[in-house]
């Protein structure tokens, strides 16, 4: 039977197991929306296309499934691009579907036309412009395969309106074979054996894990290996949740705002086992001073990550889960880490993560700690970008993968709230908190309407300090306190929440922090809590950009 392109698209999405699409209609996707009108697939109408992209991204991070967003041509598509770039930087599997002007009008400056495959080329893993309705089903099959395999990433499919209207047989390719795309899954056995040998001879081994562990669902293997080696472990922002933070071998996050003991461990280690991490500049600090005594083993699925920033001694390309499994088997001699762990213990005592709590002022770190305690560590936390993100990373202890959802590589303000929305849709039984700043939350605040009208009951904790806090912190430390345009006026968030039909709570006193959090959790609605926190609190420790990891500014306390 012949189907229209629009029908083929929706049938194909169902074949791929898509349960929900986040999106926004427009002139060049009308045929698709006409099919969605009575299709048995959930559609969530966001209030901005950027919200749709971040929601699909958050859904994907929370569930491990491929998130799908949909927008019209031109401005609809360009509004998706921040969300696409965000997913690309953090290797999140996502499908972005965009309408395009009729194929015979492409290139004519038609109304709402933009060269979307051109614009998104450097921010997608791959993209397609469909020029023949007969190619549509196979294109969608390929797109999902590419998005979710190897190092995952967003794939965009641009579909002109006439292709949506034309008819073709719906032929679903069960098998997919792309001759030019063969991601490496299994690590080279010889390299793994070499790594096992090197690990056995180490005295100060350190595991450095990243988001790749979560993507590859390798957390069990990672835990097994860490415990087998009895070695300390640190992780990146993207790696949060890959290993229980409450475990005795955990050093927490490393890097610019990592723990002092994690950064000292990097600088003293004689062996670093990097798993699914890419030696980002926020992690390494000054490159030529990074891990001066360490041999480095690097497990990564992407060959372009190997020796990109830091020269690696033993690269192992492949899927982390497979490689760690093999490595655990191959290690038969264990390093003696007794002295090393003693040194680490002394750093933990000497340089604990700390802040100066006060009786009469709400500290942002205190709010995060209270969210942790009130939810017993069982919530899913999304964050915006800036100080709120770093405090959420430092002061909530994440024991499970996919419970910390944050914009790592791109650092997108406005990500956390729509991502929380996508997370809650994917994990309806979880408590989902967006830890936000007063700046970031205003970047996608319109999604309050989406949450309320779809009963997506996320909770938002605004750490409201009246500043664009992270930039202000840099101005304080490096620009002589010249607070250039970082002072922020905000609306009355309680009234704002109420006008959208959500619940708003304003907290000005420390003793009300916990009560407000508990109340927010108990209310069966979207709740926005405006915590008036210390204005000029800084995120510490901090490694200034371009400094070695052990040149930390500790801050007070």
């Amino acid at each position: 039977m012949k189907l229209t392109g629009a029908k083929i698209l929706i049938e194909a999405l169902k074949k791929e197991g898509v349960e929900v699409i986040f999106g926004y209609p427009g002139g060049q996707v009308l045929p698709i929306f006409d099919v969605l009108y009575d299709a048995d697939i959930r559609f969530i109408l966001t209030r901005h296309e950027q919200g749709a992209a971040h929601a699909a991204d958050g859904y994907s991070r929370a569930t491990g499934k491929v998130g799908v967003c949909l927008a019209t041509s031109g401005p609809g598509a360009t509004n998706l691009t921040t969300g696409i770039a965000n997913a690309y930087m953090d290797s999140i599997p996502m499908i972005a579907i965009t309408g395009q002007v009729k194929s015979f009008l492409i290139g004519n400056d038609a109304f709402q036309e933009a060269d979307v495959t051109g614009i998104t080329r450097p921010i997608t893993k791959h993209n397609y412009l469909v020029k023949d309705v007969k190619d549509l089903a196979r294109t969608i099959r390929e797109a999902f395969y590419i998005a979710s395999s190897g190092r995952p990433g967003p794939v965009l499919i641009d579909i002109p309106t006439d292709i949506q209207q034309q008819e073709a047989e719906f032929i679903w390719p069960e098998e997919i074979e792309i001759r030019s795309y063969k991601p490496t899954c299994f690590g080279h056995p010889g390299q793994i054996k070499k790594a096992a040998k090197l690990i056995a001879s180490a005295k100060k081994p350190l595991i450095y894990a990243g988001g790749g562990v979560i993507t590859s669902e390798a957390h069990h293997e990672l835990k097994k290996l860490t415990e087998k080696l009895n070695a300390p472990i640190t992780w990146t922002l993207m790696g949060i949740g890959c290993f229980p933070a409450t475990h005795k071998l955990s050093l927490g996050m490393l890097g610019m705002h990592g723990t002092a003991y994690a950064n000292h461990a990097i600088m003293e280690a004689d062996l670093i086992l990097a798993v699914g991490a890419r030696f980002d500049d926020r992690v390494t600090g000054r490159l030529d001073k990074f891990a001066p005594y360490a041999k480095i083993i690097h497990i990564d699925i992407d060959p372009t990550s190997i020796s990109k920033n830091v020269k690696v001694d033993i690269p192992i390309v492949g899927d982390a889960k497979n490689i760690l499994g093999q490595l655990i088997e191959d290690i038969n001699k264990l390093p003696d880490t007794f002295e090393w762990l003693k040194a680490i213990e002394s750093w933990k005592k000497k340089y604990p993560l700390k802040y100066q709590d006060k009786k009469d002022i709400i500290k942002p770190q205190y709010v995060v700690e209270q969210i942790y305690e009130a939810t017993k560590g069982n919530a899913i936390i999304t964050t915006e970008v800036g100080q709120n993100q770093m405090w959420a990373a430092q002061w909530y202890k994440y024991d499970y993968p996919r419970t910390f959802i944050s914009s790592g590589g791109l650092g997108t303000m406005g990500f956390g709230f729509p991502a929380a929305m996508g997370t809650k849709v994917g994990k309806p039984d979880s408590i989902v908190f967006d830890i936000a700043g007063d700046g970031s939350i205003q970047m996608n605040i319109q999604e309050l309407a989406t949450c309320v009208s779809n009963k997506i009951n996320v909770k938002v904790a605004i750490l409201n300090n009246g500043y664009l806090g992270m930039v202000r912190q840099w101005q304080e430390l490096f620009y002589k306190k010249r607070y250039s345009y970082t002072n922020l006026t905000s609306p009355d968030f309680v009234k704002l929440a109420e006008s959208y039909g959500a619940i708003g709570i304003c907290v000005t006193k420390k003793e009300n922090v916990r009560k407000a959090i508990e109340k927010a959790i108990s209310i069966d609605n979207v709740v926005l809590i405006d915590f008036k926190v210390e204005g000029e609190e800084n995120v510490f420790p901090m490694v200034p950009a371009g400094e070695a990891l052990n040149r930390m500014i500790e801050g007070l306390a």
Partner: protein
Amino acid sequence: MRHTIAVLVENKFGVLARIASLFSARGYNIASLAVSETLDPTISYMTMVVEAEDEKILEQIKKQLNKLIDIIIVTDFTKKGHVDRELVLVKVGYSSKDKSKLDGVLNKTGAKAIQHTDDIAIIEMMGDQDEIRELLNSLKQFGIKELVRSGRIAIAK
């Protein structure tokens, strides 16, 4: 250092743009580029010549090329045995009194005159970069009016 890189790619629209943007995003210029279909019409063969002062960046670009979905194989010929050729067409000033001098150059270099008029000759030659350089040097005396080169193509030995 100049690198000659060959890539086998899917013969589709957009592939060249993907490759070009990898180079341009890093501020690299492609010195020459030749693209054509192979025996299999679904596959194209591209030969690129790239000037790269930093080997590490070139290594990164080669890996990134490999990562592009539509690229099948990347080969760097720089340290591998290969044969490369270029075609050049040169328009030079010419008058009948130059005939013997021009014939001398053509004999020496193996180039051919493919067209004469009263005041112009068009010379063609296929060769590697040294041979072409030599030809251009010896044609300077006639006055080079115009020059077109095909871009290098290369094949492994």
